[in-house]
Every structure is written in C-alpha cells, then in structure tokens.
C-alpha cells in the first residue's frame, strides 16, 4: 500500500509500463490488447487522478532512484503543481484509454500490441516529466515523450505526408529540447548539481536569469505550439490516430505549460514583470492566429489542431498576466490570472480530448476527415454527436459549461488590472481583454462550422448513410469526458479550491475566499462580481421545462413530418448546403492579410469545371522555407571543400600545419 502520493503515482506509472510491455506478448490479438489492456490502463488513469487529487493538498514528497548519471541519480518529487497536472493526465487518460480500447480495432498499419507499447510509454513518460526533480530526469522523460509520440504519429508510415509530419514534429521537438537543456545549463549556475533544489538555491544575475527564461520559453513554446513555432502542430496532431491526437492536444501540450510554470515560478523564483509582457504578447498572438486559421480549415482534425494553438495561446496569456501582476506584487490578481490559466488547462484537456475522440469515431465510421464529405451524422451516430455537441459548446466558451468559467476568470483578471503602476501596461491590458473576447467569439464561429457541417444537415456523400455508431468502450470514453466538461463547468468552486493550493505553492498567494457559498463563485479579486453556474443551470432548466409544459398544457403537441420547405424550392440536394470552404468564406474575407490563399477558378469553357482553394500559413512560407533554403545553400558551398583531388587535401593539412605553427611561434 503506497504511503505518499509519489509512491502511488510511481506505482501506477510503472503499471502503465507493464501494460505496454504486456501488449508485446500477443501483439496481434485485438481481444487482449483492446478489451483487456486499454481498459486496464484507463483504470490506472482513474486511480492516478484520484491519488493526485489527494496529493494536491499533501506536502511535497521526494524520492531518489538508483539509476541515472554517476553523480546525478534520478530525483523525483511530487508537489501540488505536479499533482495538479498528474490529475489532468489521469483524468483525461481514463476517457482516452477507454476510447482507444474500442478504437484500435484493426491495428492502423502497425500491430496493436506495438501501438499499445508506444502508447503506454508515451503515458508513462508524460507522468515522469511531471515528477522529475532534476534536469537529467526531466530531459530524458521529455525526449522519451517526444520520441514515443513520434512513433505513434507515424503509425501509418506508408503515407509520405505522414512521414513528413512526423519528421517535422520530431525535429522541432528536438530543437526545443536542446533549448530547454541549455536553459537548465544556465539555471544550475556553476554548482554542478542538476537537481531542481540546487537550481532553486542558485542565485542568477538578472541577465542570466533572463537568458534562462527566454531559452525555456523557446523550448517549451516549441512543444506547446506557440506562434511562430506552431508549424508542426497542425501537421502532426491530425496525422496521429485519434486517441493519440487527443493525448497530444489534451495532455502533452499541458506538460509544456507545466514546464514553463516550473521554471518561471519555482526555479527562477521572482520573475520581473516584463517577462510576463512577453509571454502575454506571444500568447495573444498565438490565440488570434490560431483561431482565425481554425475557422478556415476543411479537415476536421486540422481544425481541432489549430484550435489547440488558440487555447494554448489563451493559457499563455493568463500566465503572462500572472507574471506581470506577480512582478508588481499584486498577489491577489496574480493568483486570479494563474488560476484562470490553470483552469483553462483542465478545461482544454477535457474538451479537446473529447472533440478529437469524436472525430476519431467519425473517421472510423466514415473513413473521411474532409468536412466537405461529411454531414447529417447526428441521425446515424447520436452517441458520438451529443457528447461532441457538449464539447463544441464548451470550447466556444458558453455558460454554463467549463470553457466559460476560465474565460470568466481571465476576463476578470484583465478587467481589474487598472492599478498596474506602469501606465502603458494598463493601457495594453484592456486591448488584451478585447482580443481574448474576439478569440472566444471566433471559436464559437469555428465550432458552429465544425459541428454543423459534420453532424447536421444532409449527408454530403451517399456512403455516410451506412455509418455505424461508436462501440461500447468508445461511448464510455466520450461520455466520461463530456461529463468532465459539465462537472468542471458547474462546480468551479471545488476545482478552484484545489487550484488555490497550487497557486499558494507557486506564488505564495491565493484567492481570498473564492466562494461565498459552495455553489457560488465570488473571488474577492473580482470586486463583487459573482458567478453561480449551478443556479444558472437550474434556473435555465426550470424556465425551459416550464415553457415546454406550458406549451403542452395550453396548446397541443401535434406535429407532422413533411419535406423541408426552404422558400418553396422544389428539390433540395446536399450540394446546396454550405461547403466547409463556403462557411469559412467570411473569415477568409475579413482576415485576408493573414492568409496565403491560392485559388484555382474554372473558366467558363472548362468541360469539367473545377474549383480549388488552399489556405496556407504565411509563417511557413516566409519564416521556415527561407531557413531551409539557407541551410541548403550553405551545404552546397561547403561541398566545394571536397572535390576529390588529393593535392588539395594535402594542401589543407599543409596550411593547417603552417597556420598552427605561426600561432605558436
């Protein structure tokens, strides 16, 4: 029986490892892998979440393993921050693993057993990232996480574009990891101790600590998909099998947030306020850039991937805000902002996993990822459609679901930043609030497009009529996550009491009396404003039911079915509905300058007229391609050195010799 939360977590992480290895015993049997191992790992996830919830309020506990570098055995530590993210990991995994059990019916290119192994190594490495307490353990877990997810992304390695996506992903992940490594190199500050404790103890000069922070921001930003390091994300997340996409978007991105929090508040101590400004600016840029691209995507999984960029941006905005307030010593507001962004981490984990799993189910049933070939699935697959609806509403930030709570907290934090000493900062902050509001509204637009085109309307392809609804395990997974969305939405007080502990740990400050009652959220920092989602929900439900009853009572409930009227059009077919491109058109029109659009319009005389339109990322075209070109050019130049003539080679040695001799002369 584990004594400290840490032991429990380690035990469960080890259990994941064992489950993964067990997958190799009978790699090709769907029965064992799908119907035994994955549900087991879901159980582990549930247990992990439970233990982590207990651990948030428990005191931090350490353990030192026997393995590691000679002078640096692996240190593990479990404090409230890591417990929070472990809870996130466990809770999300519960749903995702359940779903995966049903999802990996036919092994996608690879044997299900192998997938099971990679999947669980991925889980375990994420757990280790959250527990690591020295630079080496952290880096090993971090890179292992990247590696295992890379193999999962390239499951269908026969497709060239998936290989390309995987390559891009691993490359950027590795560069980011190198940046993090260097940041640790700065942090250890001359004491050749790489434990986080010694880093906390080390006192860095301001310029050096800034270098450390910037490197960390670079490294973790690359993993989180902040603009302009986001290019891999819309490629890699859709390429993976859906449960893996869910894990990557829902959980893995959060480990980057965890890293930033750990480095900024825990290891570096007291960050100066202007770091927060940087984080805020990048966050808002990512949020805006992400959401406008979300609205114009035609591939449902790409759409969700871009939306992840948006949400990560919002989380970072909250983080930046927290740093700013912390820097100015406005602890209550700092706590409010931090809690808002932590809350959004939890929310995003729930809803984005839910949505990705929904797309996974659709993909399984129809084999289609292109929005233009879907539609009307709410009739065929209600078990997928209704949970997904909850996810879509939640991510659009609508009350009383969870997305709204974090938005509410964040806007409160923005709104009452008025007394920041720096004049221009408190000028900027309301604009930030405006951008956040705009992003949320745009997210709503994107979600209407996403949900309406996939699940509503007429099926755009004849094949969709045969779509099968999700199996039992998949339904369980979806329902679990949907329930999570609702619970996070209506019980904010309970969640925030957990988050308060974390923020006390990080900032030494927390929200004074976040709750007036157990059902009413009224943080003192948000002067007298309050939000009681439960009441909200009850009243709304009451009104709706009363209306329903009233109508039924006073009038009749007669209804008959007839063909759609549509202003008296005689025959309506599926092609008359908006296509995904059509629905995105206003956004393309309004935010023209941000997109790189190439259109192929049919001329009047084409006998098979064809309309093609591709929206691509300017940052890729103008930021990354030039770099690639440059490297290629340099490589070409370098080859001139080696033209196969032995005399030349001798000359090199000769000159080297003379130069060095001249050096010592």
């Amino acid at each position, binding site marked *: 029986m584990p004594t400290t939360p840490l032991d429990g977590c380690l035990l469960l992480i080890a259990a994941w490892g064992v489950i993964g290895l067990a997958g190799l015993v009978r790699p090709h049997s769907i029965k064992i892998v799908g119907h035994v191992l994955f549900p087991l790992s879901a159980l582990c996830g549930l247990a992990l979440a439970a233990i982590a919830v207990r651990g948030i309020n428990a005191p931090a506990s350490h353990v030192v393993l026997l393995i590691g570098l000679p002078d640096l055995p692996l240190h593990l530590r479990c404090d409230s921050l890591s417990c929070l993210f472990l809870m996130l990991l466990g809770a999300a995994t519960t749903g995702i693993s359940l779903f995966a059990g049903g999802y990996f019916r036919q092994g996608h290119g690879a044997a299900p057993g192998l997938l099971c192994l990679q999947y669980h190594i991925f889980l375990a490495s994420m757990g280790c990232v959250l527990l690591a307490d020295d630079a080496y353990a952290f880096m090993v877990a971090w890179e292992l996480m990247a590696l295992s997810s890379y193999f999962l992304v390239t499951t269908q390695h026969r497709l060239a574009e998936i290989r390309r996506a995987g390559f891009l992903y691993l490359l950027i992940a590795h560069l980011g990891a190198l940046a993090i490594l260097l940041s640790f190199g700065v942090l250890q500050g001359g004491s050749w101790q790489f434990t986080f404790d010694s880093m906390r103890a080390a006192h860095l000069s301001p310029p050096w600590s800034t270098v450390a922070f910037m490197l960390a921001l670079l490294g973790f930003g690359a993993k989180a998909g902040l603009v302009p390091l986001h290019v891999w994300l819309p490629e890699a997340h859709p390429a993976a099998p859906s449960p893996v996409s869910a894990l990557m978007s829902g959980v893995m991105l959060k480990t980057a947030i965890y890293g930033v929090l750990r480095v900024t508040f825990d290891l570096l101590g007291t960050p100066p306020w202007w770091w927060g400004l940087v984080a805020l600016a990048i966050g808002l840029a990512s949020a805006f850039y992400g959401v406008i691209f979300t609205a114009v995507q035609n591939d449902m999984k790409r759409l969700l991937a871009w939306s992840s960029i948006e949400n990560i941006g919002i989380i970072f905005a909250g983080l930046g805000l927290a740093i700013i307030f912390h820097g100015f010593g406005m602890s209550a507001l700092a706590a409010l902002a931090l809690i808002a962004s932590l809350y959004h981490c939890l929310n995003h984990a729930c809803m984005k996993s839910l949505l990705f799993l929904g797309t996974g189910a659709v993909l399984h049933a129809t084999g289609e990822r292109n929005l233009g070939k879907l539609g009307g699935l709410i009739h065929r697959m209600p078990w997928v459609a209704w949970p997904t609806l909850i996810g879509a509403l939640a991510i659009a930030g609508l009350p009383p679901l969870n997305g709204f709570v974090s938005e509410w907290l964040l806007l409160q934090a923005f709104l009452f930043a008025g007394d920041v000493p720096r004049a221009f900062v408190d000028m900027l902050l309301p604009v930030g609030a405006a951008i956040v509001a705009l992003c949320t509204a745009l997210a709503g637009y994107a979600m209407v497009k996403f949900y309406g085109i996939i699940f509503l309307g007429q099926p755009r392809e004849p094949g969709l009529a045969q779509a099968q609804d999700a199996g039992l395990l998949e339904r369980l997974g979806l329902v679990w996550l949907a329930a999570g969305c609702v619970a996070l939405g209506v019980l904010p007080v309970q969640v925030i009491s957990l988050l308060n502990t974390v923020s006390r740990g990080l900032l030494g400050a927390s929200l004074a009396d976040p709750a007036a009652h157990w059902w009413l959220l009224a943080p003192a920092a948000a002067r007298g404003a309050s939000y009681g989602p439960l009441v909200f929900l009850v009243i709304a439900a009451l009104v709706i039911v009363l209306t329903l009853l009233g109508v039924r009572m006073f009038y009749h409930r007669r209804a008959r079915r007839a063909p759609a009227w549509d202003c008296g059009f005689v025959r309506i077919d599926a092609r008359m509905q908006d296509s995904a491109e059509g629905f995105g058109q206003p956004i393309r029109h309004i935010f023209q300058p941000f997109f790189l659009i190439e259109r192929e319009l049919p001329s009047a005389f084409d006998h098979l007229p064809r309309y093609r339109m591709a929206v691509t990322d300017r940052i890729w075209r103008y930021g990354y391609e030039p770099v690639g070109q440059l490297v290629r050019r340099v490589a070409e130049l370098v*080859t001139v050195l080696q033209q*196969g*003539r*032995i005399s030349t080679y001798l000359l090199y040695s*000769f000159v080297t010799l*003379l130069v060095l001799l001249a050096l010592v*002369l």
Partner: protein
Amino acid sequence: MVHIPLLLQLVNACAAGLLLLSFAMLSQRRVVTLVYLLATQGALLCLATFLLAWRTNQHHLYISAALTLSLKVLFLPWLLHRLIRRLGVYWDTEPLLNSSVTMLLGLLIVVFAFGLAQPIAALSSTAARSTIGIAIAVILLAFMMMITRRKAMSQVIGFLSMENGLFFGAMSATYGMPLVVELGVALDVLVAMLVLGVFFFQIREQFDSLDLHHLESLKEKP
C-alpha cells in the same frame, strides 16, 4: 666567429646538401632522376649520421647509419627503380604549379622553418644544433612537392624524402631516437613501401596509368 670543428662543418655541409637536394627534387620532373636524387639524399643522411656517430661515438648511431644505408640508399631506390621500369612511368606531367613559383614559395618556407627552429636550436646541446632548421625545411619542402605533383610515383618519392627529413631531424636534434623506436620506424617505412608496390600494380591494372587525375572521382557532388 667561434671555431667549429671540422667534423661539424662536414655535418653542416651535409645538411646544406640535403636542402639543396630537396630544392632539386622540387623542380625535377623526370621521375628516374627523382629516384637518384632521393638516393643521394639518403647517402648524405647516412654520411651525416656516420660522422656524428664517430664524433660522439654513440654506437646506436652506427646502427641507424647502417639502417639508413641499407634501406634508404640501396633498397628503396632499387625498388622504386624496378617499379618505374615495370610500370614505365618516366616523366611526371606538368606540375600543378610551375617550377619558378614553387621555388619562390620554397624559399619562403625555408625562412619560416629557420625562424621556427630558432628556439629549439637555442637550447640544443647537441653538436649539430643549427641543422634542425634544415630538417624542418626539408620536411616542409617534401610536403610541398607532394602537393604539387600529379604522378603517384613522385608523390611517393616526396613522402620518402619527408622521411629523410625526419631522420635528419631526429639525428641532429637528439642523436637519434632510442633503438626500439628506430627499428619500429624503419620497419614501418619498409612495410609502407611494400604496400605501395602492391598499390601501384593495383592502380595500374585498374587505370593502366599512375596519373592521379584518375583518383578524383570520390567527392561531394555539388
């Protein structure tokens, strides 16, 4: 003007001869002549070693003198000569740099070498202190020769004259290395030459010529 004993004057004369010979090799294009020059260089080296041995009567110097004689004066030139006749390479094609430029660079290198040798010579207690500079010069000149030649054969000859320079350096700076090492070095040179012989025939049967421009296919394609 300090008085230098006759023997040492002779040694210095040998050194000067070596340098001269290297210049000659640098400019010479006829392969057979190169071999003769090499042999002469070896002979001078042997003589110098012998003189030093006599003056300082260190016995292992006699042995190394004998080694030099047998290996560098007799055996290797004979081997090369045979190879030349068997493979029929008598002339080197036009070198990469024309000879006058090569000479000029050679002069500069000699100056550089002497400059380099100053500190060493300064604390050398041996009789033939001033000759280290010449040894370095010979090495570097041989290096240059290898760079400028186009025939495998002449490159090898350059390589050997570099070995001569090394021996002379060892001898004049330190009265030669310990015997173990001397033997090892000699063995290596011998083996190297045999390997080279094999090589020549292989190259020949592949390209039916010893021209190095056949050996420029392995490179980075731009």
